């Protein structure tokens, strides 16, 4: 008997505002363009709006990719309610439980209950790719910002101390899934800005330390074409000419210097792979921007996402 078909999971995490949603959609797009059915699970606060705006026009321009790309938002509380629905046999009882204040207050204070329901839903998408009649090859998780992301992982790991019953089982399944490095790839994203770089270094440390997760690479998003240039600043300066005396040349040199120094700092602190995602200078639609990023992701190694 052949092993059941399972999808791989790619997790994009990092500070708020570094581009987790864009890169998640772009990776989804890259897979979909190569005819691999992919679902992007977004925890972005703007929910479906973000995706529908960004992907507007996909159906007209790339109908086949549009057929292979799915974006869903899983509300942790809804995921928990679903678990109750599948566990409790009587639908009348389910209704009563979900409506009861005891249950609602329990959901609010019970540590990690919503988180574990969310993660197990994510896990199910990867492991049973036939949910809702769809078969997915790839699952991409556009994770919440660093603090909440780490909390979600941590709280669901220390769960067995509280639980017995169906949730304890979910916890055990999750633990075995997340310890299988071939099944999922965690890719922290940063921009070359001081706060983001500091937070990324800390995130890298915590992933490897507290969670024993080895990130496959750190992605530097929205960089200028010269982020890794070694051309000395003075040489660069000599080649630029200001049309007015308003500090514009200095502005460019300053920003370029910041990028370079932060890239160096990151490289020194994060010994693994570093990848640069360049910001397209000009674009007409959000979809063009995503397609450009998807193109930049084409040479991502397979073991990141497989």
């Amino acid at each position, binding site marked *: 008997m052949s092993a059941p078909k399972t999808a791989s999971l790619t997790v994009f995490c990092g*500070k*708020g*505002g570094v581009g987790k949603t864009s890169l998640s959609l772009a990776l989804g797009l890259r897979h979909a363009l190569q005819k691999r059915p992919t679902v992007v699970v977004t925890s972005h*606060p703007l929910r479906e*709006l973000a995706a529908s705006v960004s992907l507007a026009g996909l159906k007209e321009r790339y109908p086949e990719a549009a057929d292979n790309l799915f974006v869903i938002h899983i509300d942790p509380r809804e995921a928990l309610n679903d678990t*109750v629905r599948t566990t409790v046999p009587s639908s009348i*009882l389910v209704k009563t*439980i979900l409506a*009861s*204040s*005891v249950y*609602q*207050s*329990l959901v*609010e*204070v*019970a*540590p990690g*209950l919503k988180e574990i329901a969310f993660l197990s839903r994510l896990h199910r998408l990867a492991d049973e790719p036939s949910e809702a009649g769809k078969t997915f090859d790839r699952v991409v998780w556009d994770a*919440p*910002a*660093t*603090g*909440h992301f780490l*909390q979600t992982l941590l709280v669901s790991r220390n769960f067995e101390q*509280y*639980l*017995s*019953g*169906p*949730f*304890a089982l979910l916890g055990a399944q999750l633990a075995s899934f997340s310890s299988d490095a071939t099944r999922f790839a965690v890719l922290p994203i940063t921009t070359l*800005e*001081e*706060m983001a770089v500091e*937070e990324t270094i800390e995130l890298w440390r915590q992933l490897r330390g507290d969670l024993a997760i080895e990130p496959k690479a750190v992605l530097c998003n929205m960089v*200028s*074409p*010269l982020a890794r240039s070694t*051309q000395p600043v003075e040489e*660069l300066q*000599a*080649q*630029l*000419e*200001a*049309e*007015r005396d*308003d*500090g*514009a*040349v*200095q*502005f*460019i040199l300053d*920003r*370029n210097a910041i990028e370079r120094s932060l890239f160096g700092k990151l490289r020194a602190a994060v010994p693994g792979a570093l990848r640069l995602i360049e*910001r397209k*200078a*000009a674009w007409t639609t959000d979809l063009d921007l995503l397609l450009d990023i998807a193109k930049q992701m084409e040479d991502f190694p397979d073991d990141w996402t497989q």
Partner: protein
Amino acid sequence: MKIRIFVGTGGVGKTSVAAASGLKTAIEGSRCLVLTIDPATRLKTALGIGTAGGAQKVPIEPFAAKGELWAAQLDVKQRLDHMVRRHARAGKLQLILEHPIYQAVARLVGIQELMAIERIGEALAEGYDEVIVDTAPSRHALEFLDKPEYFVQLVGSPIVRLVGRTYHWWEKSSLARLGRFGFELYSQIESLVGVKLARDVLEFFSAFQGVAEAYARESAATLKRLHDSRTTSFTIVTSPFKASRDAGFFWEELQKRKFFVEGLVVNRIWPELAVSARPGATREAEALVTWYRHVSAAHRQAWEHVAAEYSPKIRRLLPLRELPADIDGLPALHQMVQAMGQA
């Protein structure tokens, strides 16, 4: 007394904008408190103050300030302990503080927003002319507005009040007095999550009841003031590329909750870059110049776009230019204040 609440998604410089607004107000003569809720913030670095807890006075004399600037970062655990100590019923204090569920409550997503309401309530009593609140990014900032009301409703409901008593009845009478349906419901929940957790939660709730009720009374009064447009206004902070989407999202969400949106700040707009590569420049230099010019043009286009859309809706629209370096101290923050004046 005025309250100004700054909302926005991550990475837009919300903390800096909030702190600079506080500095501006203080320079002009107010006694102002900047309260940051975001646990990931670097307000302390931005304001150049130490790490001790509680509100700290920021040394703003160099800017010929007529007022005072105070800064505080929300310490969730400390506020929660403080609240429990103040409100716990006789004999319940130790039980709550040492309860395993209590430890979890302190770490819960959303609890910082509940504590923020409590802290704002305290600030209101401390005689500031203005309180500026720097919220946590995005989703959580709105939870900060939703949760207290939810909590008030929760403890305000007679059915939940029963939870505590139910547990004690159940303990004392071995379920004898609990209705059959209530028992079935409880045992279903127990079999879902396990005996220990269900019992822990009920036990904790029965002890925590008094605290929650006292909290609900206090936060209801504070929430009322947050809904009063004479006292409280909201400012949306965003960056050029996020401006259109963020402004739309927060505008809608705040309207839905009937809050008064006074300002929209588009932060970190690049200046117009009239720079070209000299003849004979390397391709690298040429690419760099083209890239910077394009990005800066896109920034200004994004600003014009949101300004056109929101000027009929929001009274104060403020474009702020990208500053040369990180906001890493008072002088840099003061630069931002000056940019606010020029805009």
